């Protein structure tokens, strides 16, 4: 009997702990986000603290494994979801998200409050940060990186890159769209030409990035802001992003409130809070992205590359074409 008792007690203990944490009197604002946003090293804790001070509520971040995981979760839960807000979708998912009919207009005025390199107006989604995709390299190991996407595609075989899978990773999808926006209908041939230089295609961003740090590849697909992390935390500027002549593809991360949010008033208040400097000032050195609102940038961001053009497909274009474009990518790399 004793053997049976231990697991039963353990389960009860876990259930009771989570129960007691849920049973607060103050209203709870539930935000679904991705793991690293809510983690101790992410912006979540600081944002939670400031917002709780002004809303007299509890902020509960529910950390899911990716931005696509957030959307999948609310789709599974449907209208009875407990989430008030989802934070961490990007423009590539906006059309799909809007079509679910699960989200409500935010009622926040975006005019003059954003600092994105592209125009952004949407009544359902509020941008909270953005970044450029870029290939990062180690300047001590590679003196002259390619200066354009075309140069990389046609580079000699001894340049080795590691990228992410567009079906499982946001940067992976970003590169797919980047290549498509530069090459148009020739994207398939471009991928075939790039293929010998691709060491491997990973599931997530970190798998690729850690391989690069381990010396498995000369360049890795990441963000133009990645070098800032190494400057601030590691104290080294040897990691740089390569500026490409065609301009860089962008990612804009957005938040939205649910139509059936259990706490609609709090949700609306939070949607407005997103573009405040209290929220935005945490973004650069916690999420390692550019703030979407107005906030001062830390010194480490000064030396980052300034792309000549910000490339971004509309959410509708992405939703309509992504399956076909991924098919094209798969065929080109499977040969």
């Amino acid at each position: 009997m004793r053997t049976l008792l231990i697991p039963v007690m353990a389960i009860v203990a876990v259930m009771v702990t989570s129960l007691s944490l849920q049973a607060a009197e103050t209203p709870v604002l539930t935000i679904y986000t991705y793991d690293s946003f809510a983690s101790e090293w992410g912006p979540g804790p600081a944002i939670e603290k400031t917002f709780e001070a002004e809303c007299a509520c509890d902020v509960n971040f529910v950390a899911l494994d990716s931005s696509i995981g957030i959307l999948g979760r609310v789709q599974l839960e449907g209208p009875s979801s407990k989430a008030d807000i989802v934070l961490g979708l990007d423009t590539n998912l906006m059309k799909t998200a809007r079509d679910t009919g699960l989200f409500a207009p935010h009622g926040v005025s975006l005019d003059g409050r954003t600092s994105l390199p592209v125009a952004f107006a949407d009544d359902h989604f509020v941008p909270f940060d953005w970044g450029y995709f870029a290939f990062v390299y180690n300047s001590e190991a590679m003196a002259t990186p390619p200066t354009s996407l075309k140069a990389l595609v046609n580079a000699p075989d001894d340049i080795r890159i590691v990228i992410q899978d567009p079906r499982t990773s946001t940067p992976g999808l970003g590169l797919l769209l980047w290549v498509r926006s530069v090459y148009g209908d020739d994207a398939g041939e471009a991928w075939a030409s790039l293929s010998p230089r691709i060491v491997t295609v990973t599931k997530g961003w970190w798998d690729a990035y850690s391989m690069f740090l381990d010396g498995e590849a000369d360049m890795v697909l990441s963000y133009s802001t990645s070098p800032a992390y190494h400057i601030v935390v590691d104290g080294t500027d040897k990691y740089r992003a390569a500026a490409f002549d065609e301009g860089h593809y962008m990612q804009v991360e957005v938040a939205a409130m649910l139509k059936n949010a259990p706490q609609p008033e709090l949700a609306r208040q939070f949607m407005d809070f997103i573009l405040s400097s209290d929220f935005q000032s945490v973004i650069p050195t916690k999420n390692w992205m550019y703030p979407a609102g107005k906030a001062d940038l830390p010194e480490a961001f000064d030396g980052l590359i300034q792309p000549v053009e910000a490339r971004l497909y509309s959410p509708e274009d992405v939703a309509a074409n992504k399956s076909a474009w991924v098919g094209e990518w798969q065929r080109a790399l499977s040969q």
Partner: protein
Amino acid sequence: MAARAQPIALWRRPGPISLVGLGIAIGLLALALAAIGALVSVAGHGPAGVGGNILRVAAFTAMQASLSTLLALALALPVARACWRRAATWRAGWLLPFSFLPVVMPTTVAATGLIGVWGQRGFVSDYLALLGLDRLPPIYGLGAVLLAHVFFNAPLMLRVLNGALTSVPASQWRLSAQWGLSEWERFRQIEWPALRPVIPGLLALVFLLCFTSFSLILMLGGGPAVTTLEVNIYTALRFDFDLALAGKLALLQLVICGAVVVLLTRLTGRSWAATPRPTHGVPHQKGDTSTLCRSVDALALALFIIITMLPVIAILVRGLGPYLIVVSEWPALYRATVTSLVIALSSGSLATMIALVLASARTRRSDAGLAVWPLDLSISLYLAVSAIVLGTGLFILLRQVADVFLLAPLLVTVGNMLIALPFAYRVLEGRLAALATAHDRLCAGLGLRGWRRLRRVTLPAIAPELGFAAGLSSALSLGDMTIVALFGSQQFQTLPWLLYQTMARYRAGEAAALSLWLLTLTFLLFMGFTLAARMLGRRRHA
């Protein structure tokens, strides 16, 4: 005469435990199908037809899994023989307690270890460079996937095959030594009959593990050409949010794997005896000390150490350093450790108990001449149910009746239990079958039955296997990253999840230190169970 015949007839009867076991087996099968059904029903429409492309993927997956399984066996078999033969002279037995580590390691951690050995800056390349030779070319592709699968599965095979060899009675070895049987004759006459019954079950298990491989394929495969059905299930569910297609692919996976399990387990009467028995009193065999035989054994052991032990050492080397002190100051580390241990111990002991019931049921049914394949099938199938489909399906089913945030710890416990169950079942079932043959008559004569027989006779005798099963199950769930990623919440944080969050924020040093911590904990947990069981077994015997 009649008085003696009755108890013997009694133990031939399947008894209530057999029905309970069958009930659990049917329940497990129903649960897996319900999870897939839930997915399809939420989709609200029937799935599109499965295209020729998917059939090609399925064929490639099967080819990859077969190759991986055969390669793992090709490595494990000579190593198992070498380990057994050289246990006394070379102390080769020390490999065994460490050999389960790859089996339970989170794939992301394992991949860093593999890259630490075979990568551009890995041990092997560094050594080649030191000798003035070229570094290894990039390893990515089918070859890297096969290497990784051998790394994960050869140790498990070694453990089981070695267990089978040690179960050969010493008397047979004495006879063989007297007769001076040659190496080949000995293998054919003595070793093969002991190995043959365990091999089909082992092949089935490893085939399923390789067939459903996912993260490793994406990490080491080199590109979309190297893929598995599981990768397609994941992308159908996540990228396309096509629940119906995901459900259909999951079903296809289940059918293919089910066919393989039935095919392979039909070839076998019983399965594994996993725990090494004492080998003293076994005389030296003819040719054991010949240079050829020693070289072959040395080569097999060296290859095994390079493939399965070096990556573990690479993880140790990366993890040792100042970052260990950094992470040791995180309060989150201790919270996550406690959460992980609670989950691991709960799902590990649950898996062991349920496996014990199922294994007893199998033994009873087998004795009574009833079919055992429904048990084998429903349990093995949990390795073939895509983890993400199982998790998503359970989520859909349970959110209608309960709060999902409260469910998270429970679902993770149950999910991990289901994944550990096939391992625990295989470990216990082989030993119970062997015991039944040895003890049935005696117990029947003494009138020991049911609970009393279990407590007095069976439990003390299988204590080492119970320890191994519980240790393996707990260790497996300690390293789980798949299921926990499906049910997030801020309060509920396990160690692998903490590792995942650390990695998502550029923190390579901390991630390496956490990997080492996770690995150490896994090892201690496993050894704790093994030693506790051994002591328990000894005390009861005394």
